[in-house]
């Protein structure tokens, strides 16, 4: 599709969508967002990019094959679940680490839950792009 408007708009839009998708992923625990929504937004970014510039360009921008991203996401999510076992908790119990914790401020929270959410993000991103790219290429 050769549309100058789309091409010009895409450059801005894709960058915004990707940044926004990560923002949605990170804020998800306290405000609307999360890995699923973040992954959908990120996927939308690449889908728009693929429509404007073709799937080959989009694939090279993604660097990794989308199906591999999806599977890696599944692996990361599983890892996040298994992590709890090493701390003596049941499978998929959230593990938390608060960096710089004070009495009234929790500081910077790091958790296995976030790792799990990152896995969800990658699964959604990778799966949708797997289907979209394959569909576009086969048409």
């Amino acid at each position, binding site marked *: 599709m050769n549309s100058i408007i789309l091409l010009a708009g895409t450059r801005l839009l894709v960058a915004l969508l990707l940044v926004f998708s990560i923002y949605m992923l990170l804020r998800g*625990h306290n405000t609307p967002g999360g890995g699923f929504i973040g992954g959908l937004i990120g996927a939308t970014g690449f889908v728009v990019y693929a429509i404007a510039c073709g799937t080959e360009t989009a694939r090279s921008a993604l660097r990794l094959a989308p*199906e591999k991203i*999806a599977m890696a996401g599944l692996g990361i999510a599983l890892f996040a679940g298994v992590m709890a076992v090493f701390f003596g908790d049941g499978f998929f119990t959230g593990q938390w680490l608060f960096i710089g914790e004070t009495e009234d401020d929790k500081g910077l929270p790091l958790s296995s839950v976030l790792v799990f*959410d990152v896995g*969800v993000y990658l699964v*959604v991103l990778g799966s949708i792009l797997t289907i979209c790219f394959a569909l576009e290429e086969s048409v």
Partner: protein
Amino acid sequence: MGAKTTTDGAAGARWLTFEGLVPVAIAALLFAWLWQAIPPISAGEVVRYSWDWVPSLGIALSFLIDGLSLTFGLLITGIGALVFLYASKYLQGHPHLARFMLFLVLFMASMLGLVLADNLLTLFVFWELTTITSYLLIGFDHATSKARRAALQALLLTGTGGLALLAGFILIGTVAGTFELSEIRAQGDVLKDHALYLPILILVLAGAFTKSAQFPFHFWLPNAMAAPTPVSAYLHSATMVKAGIYLLARMHPNLGGTDVWLWTLTIFGAVTAVFASFMALKQTDLKQSLAYTTLMALGTLTLFLAADIGYAITAAMTFLIVHSLYKATLFLVVGIIDHATGTRDVHKLGGLARAMPITAFAAGIAALSMAGFPPFIGFISKEIKYAGALAVQSEPVLVAAAVLLANALMLAVAGIVSFSPFWRRKHLADDLKPHEGTWPMLLGPVILASLGALFGLFPDLLALSLVNPGVAAILGPEVEPAQLKLWAGVNLPLILSLATFALGIGIYVYRQRLRDALRALGERLVNFDRGWDRVLDGLKWLAAWQTDLIQSGVLRRYLFITFLTLFVGIGGTIVARGALSVEIAWPDLLLKHWVVITLIVAGAMLTLTTSSRIAAIAGLGAVGIGVALIFIIFGAPDVAITQLLVETLVVVLFGVAALKLPRLDDSGRKTHRPLDALLAVGVGAIVTLVMLQVTAGPLDRRLTTYFEETSWPEAFGRNIVNVILVDFRALDTFGEIAVVVIAALGAFALLKGRKQDEPR
């Protein structure tokens, strides 16, 4: 497996390899570990280990060593070590030797777990693991269709039995309130007196009988001889097929002692034993012959486990050990013959003793034990069997007659398998150049056969260490086990023994005539093996028929069937529960609600009436956005965002696909549309009804309250939806994203695969 993998004596090829030696070492260590448990166990102690596995379901990794499991454990590890040593030489240079040894070790571990398990569900897991490893080992020679068929047959048959067994175990757990075998045993007659006793018994027996190849489930075992000989010696004579026997012995205190148990086991055992003995005589392939004698042994063991008196159970325990010793020896010997000459046909073999003296020695001793000649342990075992048969509560004469017939046939088969190939005067074909096996292959047969002689001369070695504790484990310590003696005086068992010798030698002499007669008879009888194929064919036909019916390949019909199922399922439930009436309280609608309703209705109408695909998809998009707006109005922003994003992506996907789709077809308007419309209205009405029903009653807010209260203090998150997704219900989410990945890979394979198939 007749094919020799390497020529013997090809020096150079090392057999003392890592994959050859490590399994032997593992088995030997386990054997030594179990060995040191003999003194305390024979003194009446019981060793128990337990770790929690799934405590909420009452599943524990608990293991128990008593007389019964110790006997099995020693057989498994001891024969295992010798067979592993043998196998590393037998398959020396085979490209998949390492794989083979791995399967063998895995099997040993599973079998050991099975006999040591003290928890029914743990036992079941190991039970299934032995089925799977047996499948892998039978199908080891996977390039041949015969091996594949035999492997699949064994897997399906024992797997089906395994499912029945699981159901039986769950019923036992429900009745007894625990899955721990030792606790169930302590409850005594609770199971026997319960109304569910009969279903439990049938299910457990289905598992045990398929695993231990009782008639009419026997046919998988002779077919399993497609496996390499070490497997036949180890799994399909000495250990795995005895898992069913082990289970019968293990469940004996809780399920045994009733008339149903007594008669079922007696009949199945006797029929299997006699039938298998005749079949064994009929075979000309040494390995097939041995396979049927194994069946005979399994039948005999079942027969004796039917009773609950000391003599019968002692007979079972003794015969169990004796059989493993001589049968493993004979299988290994047949393997050596096969390895050295390339054939297992009795007609082609003879006079091998000169070239293979050590093999002939081992085979001779094992066969004498099998035939029941003194002073071998087989003789004592036979005497005890007769004593046990005469003492059973069911029908002593019949049982004794069955045992006599089976024993006589056994004697004849022992002659066929290990006398005729070695001593018969026969000029071997020129291409058969027999030579003695090497020591790793000879060690097993010699040790196992010599043990048969040793135990025969000193029966107390066996009785005090294993047999008596085993009997005590089955019948309880207060029951007196029968004495193992070489000379018990002139009594009825001795007379029966002499009759056995006469009958057996007679059968051996006239074996050829009997064989011909049996073959003529066999052609008229039902062939179970072919029947099995018919059953499988029938199953495939059924699957094809129902696939054609439900999965026509037309998307519209899939949807129709799916929604029809929904309609019938929910509608049926509503009618059955009499929940048709519903009160509608008309709510106050604000302007924003009206706007959303209008949007959804207008979108739906557009989709239904338009003849343009683009317009239809736009209409659906409007409906989707309307739904998203509803989510926003009622305070579910996460769901709304997801809905909007999915709508967007659907439009993109459709845009791509639309290029390829044909024009909307108007011809269906008259044929299927009225029916579709009817179903659509029906489903819509029913979903509406359900929604009204749900909202009419007071909402159960316990979960909501719980999540609201704990989301921040316990999971450190304020967005409850997300906290539920990634923390409270993380396992569900994990399952869902796994489905997403699978769906994506499926679509990927479909799209990419189609591209490759199409000629460009």
